[in-house]
């Protein structure tokens, strides 16, 4: 497990993706700072006009911006690479020669992908918070309900939001893991995973498919705002966790079925 994480975070590609994610809050904060007049209420992405009051909101704005594409993109790359990457490098059969077993390999690969989800989300939130604090300073944060909380509690809320978004991405990681067992071409698995995440969001926009919406893994992706209400509304956190757990179970089982019956030739 430790070696798997070392491999994942030893790759220049992983760091490049995290850097790209870190660039989003930095760009937002610098743009707001340099613009001559502060953004008015309701302008630009949500939370943007609150950035100047409290730097922590840079992280929130960056999350809203990156949830539709950037986060699924990086998670798709990591999750799609899990099995197919080893297969394409020809290292998969060596891993399977070791007595670790296929199930364990699958679990280790998935946990590594999940750790990357957390790292990616934390990157956006923490870098956003740091940049925001540096450029705008800390102030009392206004929650969605209009109540004001101090810096300490707003930091706790920001971390909770990071956890929420990480959980949101676990389902997509499981889908990526399954797709990765289907092919030996990692790029194909990555692309398929990213495309699936976009398709899920497009389907979520179509009112005609309302019956399908509760089953889409992207259903609660923007629900993290419920953690910024006063008092905290845990309903969407619970719904989201249940939904993602369902995806992990289904696609984990599919990946298991596929991977343990697969002839590993490379």
């Amino acid at each position, binding site marked *: 497990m430790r070696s798997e994480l070392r491999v994942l975070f030893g790759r220049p590609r992983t760091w490049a993706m995290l850097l790209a994610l870190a660039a989003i809050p930095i760009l937002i904060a610098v743009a707001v700072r340099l613009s001559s007049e502060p953004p008015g209420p309701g302008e630009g992405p949500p939370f943007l006009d609150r950035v100047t009051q409290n730097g922590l909101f840079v992280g929130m704005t960056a999350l809203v911006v990156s949830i539709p594409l950037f986060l699924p993109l990086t998670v798709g790359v990591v999750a799609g690479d899990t099995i197919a990457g080893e297969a394409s490098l020809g290292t998969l059969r060596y891993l399977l020669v070791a007595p670790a077993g296929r199930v364990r390999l699958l679990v280790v690969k998935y946990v590594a992908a999940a750790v990357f989800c957390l790292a990616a989300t934390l990157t956006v939130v923490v870098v956003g918070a740091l940049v925001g604090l540096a450029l705008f300073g800390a102030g009392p944060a*206004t929650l969605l309900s*209009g109540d004001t909380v101090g810096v300490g509690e707003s930091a706790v809320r920001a971390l909770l939001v990071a956890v929420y978004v990480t959980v949101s991405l676990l389902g997509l990681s499981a889908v990526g893991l399954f797709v990765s067992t289907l092919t030996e071409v990692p790029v194909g698995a990555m692309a398929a995973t990213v495309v699936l995440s976009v398709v899920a969001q497009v389907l979520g926009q179509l009112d005609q498919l309302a019956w399908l919406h509760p089953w889409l893994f992207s259903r609660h992706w923007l629900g993290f705002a419920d953690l910024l209400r006063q008092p905290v509304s845990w309903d969407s956190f619970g719904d989201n966790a249940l939904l993602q757990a369902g995806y992990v179970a289904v696609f984990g089982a599919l990946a*298991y079925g596929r991977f343990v019956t697969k002839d590993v030739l490379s």
Partner: protein
Amino acid sequence: MKRPSVRWAPAVVVPAVIATGALISSAGAGAADLEPRTPAQVLALLAASDVQAFAGTLEQTSELGLPTLPDGALAGSAEGSAATAVLELLTGERTARVYADGPSNLRVQVFDTLTERDVVRRGDEVWLYDYEANEATRLELPDAPAGHAASLPGAGTPDGVPTPAELADRFVALVDDTTEVAVGAGVVVAGRDAYDLVLSPRSADTLIGSVVIAVDAETGLPLSVAVHARGQEEPAARVAFTRLTLGAPDPALFSFTPPPGAQVEEVEPPQPGLRPPAGTGLDRLPAVALPTVTGSGWDTVVALPAAAVPPELAKAPLVAQLTRAVDGGRALETAVVTVLLTEDGRALVGAVPLERLQDVAAGR
């Protein structure tokens, strides 16, 4: 080495388990085992309810059959914001939290994606807050009339005032001319057992099939209200608690201080007995523009004379999109309400089919 079919077993079993679980949780929401009661008893229960302190989550769904407007269709138009706000209420789903403690402490939070609107009332002070616009509005309610306190629930029942049970009996008798009242099967709403009170119109001329109120078996608090249209499986509109806690919520919820940076506005409350203040548009309504009411009960049709209908209404792009041209004007048809804008500028509204509105408009 096990056979491949065994290896695939989890991939079949897991979705099956999830599907079963989903089916059970949606079907299990019904059926509560309650002692049978007559409609009058349930009405009495409803009338006797004096729950004043609770915290709950409400969910509102609408299936009115309104045409879906493309996003941004209203952007930039003058009537945009107000009209979209109304349309939003009439379409789709919405979640709100309600906190109440006594008659004068109330907080309502309407959840939207990434934003929220709040109403906070504490005593005579009311705050409205809109997070997205970052606007806080304060208004002071006029003092309650002196006799008001006595009429509050729980303030005692002086002699001569009917008991809730009597009231319920009278109510049943009253509604019985136009409405059939029945008690449906027990249901579970927000985890509480409740009686379904079913009000069905006797008139065949209305679009409304029935109104169903779930009355909490223990406290008599209405837990959900659903309006069913004729021939439509899903309720046309439903408001229901998904979560309910009885007892006083945290008092801090009822105090509101506008957040720093918010735009604060004071609004003068309308004084009773005075003309509406100039500039609100209300004072420009001519006194003769009173609506005429045709019929009674469920198939009532309300007709606004041309003078009360802004002439530019029929030409507004939003109205043009929502309505369709019919014999005698333009009509908006939903599952439970029909609106007819006649060519001579009148507006007719009713929970009736379009033909009846046309008949009334033509004076038949």
